[in-house]
């Protein structure tokens, strides 16, 4: 079952002076249950526009989008969603604890369940000490963590996170990645946007690359990494203690190992040398730009 579904989504923004921005160009995309999907693209690619359409904050010009089979223009589509906006901003006159209660009540949570879930999540996100302080006194990282807390409070099936790691220090980033991994283990679906390729590599099952409103590719992270293998670094040694380290092309690995064994070399280590997601992303964007230039 597809938990998130974009069908031929197009979004055109019309400026006051008549200029037109094609923020999304007939984008179709499906995210399955239990998947962690990374929506990767440079700034201004259309990631946040797609997410805002999912949340009913803006309407698509054409096409449709669904969450758990419910049209996103219906308020009930958001019942199963926890959403973290980009650079989140919450009612700053409330304390962190009050804000979580407000969100929980909006989802119709039972008060006793809300209290226990609120306490647990505040502790998990290291906001327990600050829970009674007004949000206006929180640091950027604390607000980001509160944003994550309010997505977790009602234990939704779907998490939509817009740049969840932005503004966080390395500890905060590690915490977010850990939480995303935990959500995956619980069978939750996570759809998150980012322009940081390392985040995708660390936690995603699949990745979609978007640039200038066009979804350029969708693939599994494992497959991208496998395809990106350019060769192997083989470390070997002889009985007399001589060591050797060589870069072997992908196609020659078998032959190289057989020859090494025949020559009494012992293989100590074989490490794949591959392009990372960043190289993959840059290649795709570069190809797209070449097409545009030629066109």
């Amino acid at each position, binding site marked *: 079952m597809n938990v998130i579904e974009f069908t031929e989504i197009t979004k055109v923004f019309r400026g006051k002076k008549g200029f037109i921005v094609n923020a999304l160009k007939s984008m179709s995309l499906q995210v399955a249950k239990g998947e962690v999907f990374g929506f990767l693209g440079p700034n201004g690619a259309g990631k946040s526009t797609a997410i805002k359409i999912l*949340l009913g*904050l803006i309407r698509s010009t054409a096409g449709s989008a669904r969450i758990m089979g419910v049209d996103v223009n219906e*308020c009930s589509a958001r*019942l199963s*969603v926890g*959403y973290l*906006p980009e650079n989140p*901003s919450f009612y700053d006159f409330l304390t962190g604890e009050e804000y979580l209660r407000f969100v929980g009540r*909006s989802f119709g949570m039972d008060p006793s369940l809300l209290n226990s879930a609120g306490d647990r999540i505040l502790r998990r996100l290291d906001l327990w000490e600050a829970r009674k302080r007004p949000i206006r006194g929180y640091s950027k990282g604390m607000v980001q963590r509160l944003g994550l807390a309010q997505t977790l409070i009602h234990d939704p099936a779907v998490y939509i996170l817009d740049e969840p790691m932005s503004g966080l220090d390395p500890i905060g980033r590690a915490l977010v990645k850990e939480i995303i991994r935990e959500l995956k283990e619980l069978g939750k679906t996570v759809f998150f946007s980012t322009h940081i390729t390392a985040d995708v590599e660390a936690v995603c099952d699949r990745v979609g690359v978007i640039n200038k409103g066009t979804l350029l590719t969708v693939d599994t992270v494992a497959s991208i990494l496998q395809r990106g293998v350019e060769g192997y670094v083989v470390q070997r040694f002889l009985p007399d203690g001589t060591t050797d380290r060589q870069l072997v092309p992908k196609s020659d690995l078998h032959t190289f190992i057989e020859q090494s064994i025949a020559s009494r070399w012992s293989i100590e280590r074989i490490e794949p040398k591959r392009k990372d997601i960043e190289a993959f992303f840059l290649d795709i964007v570069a190809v797209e730009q070449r097409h545009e230039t030629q066109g």
Partner: protein
Amino acid sequence: MANLISINLLAIFRDKVFHGILAIAVIFLLIPSISSLSMRQVTELSITLSLSLLSVILLLLSVSLGATSLWKDIERRYTYSVLSLPMERSAYLIGKFIAIALFLLLTALVLGAVTCLVVWLSSGIYPPERPILWSALILCVIFSALKYIVLIAYSFLFSTVSTSFFLPVFGTISVFMAGNATQQVYDYVHSPAAKALSPLLKHAASFFYYLLPNFSAFDLQINAIYAIPLSLKGVALPFIYFCIYTPLLIVVAAIIFARREMK
């Protein structure tokens, strides 16, 4: 809805602007002394001053809360987090409006009680020639609150179409001024004195008379000051007018807001 109303009430009570405006209420304490300077009609003057001060405070609250509340939520990007919760936009807007309207009504009742105390003190020192009509005084306070609730509905309507605070703030102030003049303009253009006016101008005046609010209908100050008994019709008609006009404004505002893009 109750969740939204309570959170918005909390926002008002924790707002520093509200604290500042309420500080103006301290002026009430000076009214008996200032009124006594007139040497005659001391009670009438204290009623006038008290009701005028109450009106000014309610106006300031209407503009500061009504015209900036929605704009602030959009400007500070609170709307992204709140409107992504499973609630209709109309519920968000109406919840906000009800909270501000309730708060205004509560403020009017508290300041109304202070007004009664001030008038009672003044009348004790300098007894009035006519007995005070307390019912008219209380009704005057309530209708004053209703008038400003209509104004808040207008400020919400402006906020739903505007991307800055200029239209909500200055539009609300303009409606306030126009609303206080519509009855007089209507009476004038339909009087023999306005015979020379073109029919087009008269039709335009009539059109705006029905379109813009008529705040004169809510003005019961004369009855309160000079203890003139109120007729049932004089109270019922403005109340019915309020009950029809305000929801109409809010429905239009909700329709516009539901279509607004949160870019």
